[in-house]
């Protein structure tokens, strides 16, 4: 608290205890009010979000009023700002909590062996699973990674180690432009590209991989570039002074030093693209059967699976919704695991002895 700096000795101020008491009081009042609504039958079940929002608003008003009365206008404005900023954070947490809760609560119904063991072939109504979609997602993402990582890393190497003048500036700008390409436009590009060669009905997995690469390459370039830039120049100079060729210096000294950051960047890029739906909807299409072949035939992917399960509900609506949520839950889990793994790896592979 910065109170010490600003309060003249004679000024009274609100203690921390009072503030916490106000928090408790406004929570109590708000929860009481909403419980009353439930008890009187005005609303069916207890509205947690409403209760929290009302409590937050109550707290803001009460502290502002009290502070205005006890501490004066300037302190009151400060308290108001603190309360608003804190409540902004709480409000932002609400959707995250609600989303994770809903995904787990609804997804757990079909989070069983069947889901990971069967496809949707000949399934109408209950049963079936998302194995074909999981396999498709893994294949398409792997293909996109195989395309993007070498190009991305080599471009970053060019920009940091070799690039100078107009070409490297142009590439930097264009990487920025690529970062801003909407995912659906990437899908349209892949479609436009392959439709030219294979006709307008073309749908296959590798097209999805190309579309995802367009989205993934700039992310890889950006993160790798940042990592290569922080490799100390002394390392390069020491290696060159020993007579090591430049390319070996890059391969054996620069990249290994930065490898932790590079891998982290790649994994974060993968977690970005693995949930992309729109481009795959356009160029991969959807199928209900297993398809291991990237180069022919429609290929199911997890995000598109979630979307189609939701949008083409059959007569047994609940079965489709359950599958959609389970797919969403699996997707969230994959992304979380990738993110956490990236953080752990960046810790483990961080250059040793530098600090």
């Amino acid at each position, binding site marked *: 608290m*910065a109170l010490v700096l600003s309060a003249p000795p004679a000024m009274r101020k609100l203690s921390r205890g009072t503030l916490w008491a106000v928090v408790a009081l406004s929570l109590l009042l708000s929860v009481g009010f909403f419980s009353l609504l439930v008890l009187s039958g005005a609303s069916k079940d207890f509205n947690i979000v409403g209760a929290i929002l009302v409590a937050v608003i109550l707290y803001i008003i009460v502290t502002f009023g009290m502070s205005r009365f006890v501490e004066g206008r300037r*302190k009151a404005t400060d308290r108001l700002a603190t309360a608003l900023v804190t409540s902004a954070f709480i409000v932002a947490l609400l959707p995250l909590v609600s989303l994770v809760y809903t995904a787990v609560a609804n997804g757990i119904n079909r989070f069983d062996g069947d889901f990971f063991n069967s496809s949707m072939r000949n399934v109408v109504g209950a049963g079936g699973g998302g194995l074909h979609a999981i396999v498709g997602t893994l294949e398409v993402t792997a293909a996109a990674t195989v395309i993007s990582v070498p190009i991305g890393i080599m471009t970053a190497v060019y920009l940091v180690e070799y690039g100078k003048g107009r070409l490297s500036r142009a590439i930097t700008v264009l990487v920025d432009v690529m970062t801003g390409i*909407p995912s659906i436009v990437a899908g349209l*590009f892949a479609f436009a590209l392959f*439709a030219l060669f294979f006709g307008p009905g073309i749908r296959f997995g590798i097209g999805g991989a190309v579309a995802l690469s367009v989205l993934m390459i700039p992310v890889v370039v950006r993160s790798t570039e940042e990592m290569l830039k922080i490799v100390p120049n002394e390392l390069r100079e020491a290696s060159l002074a020993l007579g090591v060729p430049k390319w070996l210096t890059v391969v054996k000294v620069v990249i290994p030093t930065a490898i932790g950051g590079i891998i982290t960047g790649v994994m974060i890029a993968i977690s970005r693209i693995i949930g992309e739906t729109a481009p795959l909807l*356009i160029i991969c299409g959807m199928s209900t059967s297993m398809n291991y072949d990237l180069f022919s035939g429609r290929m199911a992917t997890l995000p598109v699976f979630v979307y189609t399960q939701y949008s083409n509900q059959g007569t047994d609506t609940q079965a489709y919704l359950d599958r959609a949520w389970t797919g969403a839950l699996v997707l969230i889990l994959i992304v979380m695991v990738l993110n956490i793994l990236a953080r752990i790896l960046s810790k483990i592979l961080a250059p040793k002895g530098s600090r």
Partner: protein
Amino acid sequence: MPVAPSATRPRSRQRPGDVLFSGAALAAGILILVALAAVTIFLIAQALPAFTANPADVSKDGRGFWSFVVPLVFGTIWAAALALLIALPLSIGIALFISHYAPRRVAVTLGYIVDLLAAVPSVVFGLWGITVLAPAMQPVYVWLVDNLGWIPLFAGPVSGTGRTVLTVAIVLAVMILPIITALSREVFLQTPRLHEEAALALGATRWEMIRMAVLPFGRPGLISATMLGLGRALGETMAVAMVLSPSVIISFALLTSQNPTTIAANIALNFPEASGIGVNVLIATGLVLFLITLLVNSLARFIINRRKDFSGAN
């Protein structure tokens, strides 16, 4: 540039490994140029038939491509602008909370939590928006239309499902929140320590310090963060496609069941069934979207580059 000064003088003969490696690096860089050129060229090539085709084939009302695309452009910008309006104050609040209010030790963890929002796939946001958010907001909308219906924005008749453009804007706001927050947090953290301490030493309260030292310093970064968030909201597809009950109209009413749809959502919904000239029309709208986001993002980059020292974004 960390290039050793000796690299330019042909002091020794070029080693084949060097030639190969630098050639490969150069090729990768050039490939990016080619890829972007290819994106533009192929999109234009596939979009061209839509511009030249008989107007009657392009859209149902027979007035041609431009009258088809204008409502979509309006919807795209309208939904994104609403999302920005919701997300911007919240993001600034969160960024300030993490950079200047939360205890240092908790702040990093809180940053991770907000970043987690960015990691959630958009299709999951769509599913959440339609099964959780839309039904939850519907009673609120009914109340708004009943009591504030005289404001044109809240004009009725109210949507029975809650699948309105306002719900879409809220979902989009949640999606762009982490982007704007992450960038503005970095900018706020870069405020010179001395500015902040000087303000406090003059007797400013914490809020006055933020208003006088942190916010003016962070303004360019904040603007560019906003633009990047806007760029993301403009191109977002699945959340809009799943949540909105769409129609091709221009309307500012937030709560009715007649909502202007966006370019991206329109493509996603109609592409799987499109054929013939329909495909070209959709690709042409995609090209328009590409140009809009390009404009917004370039503006953001321009602002960042003009005040590079002040910005945490690269």
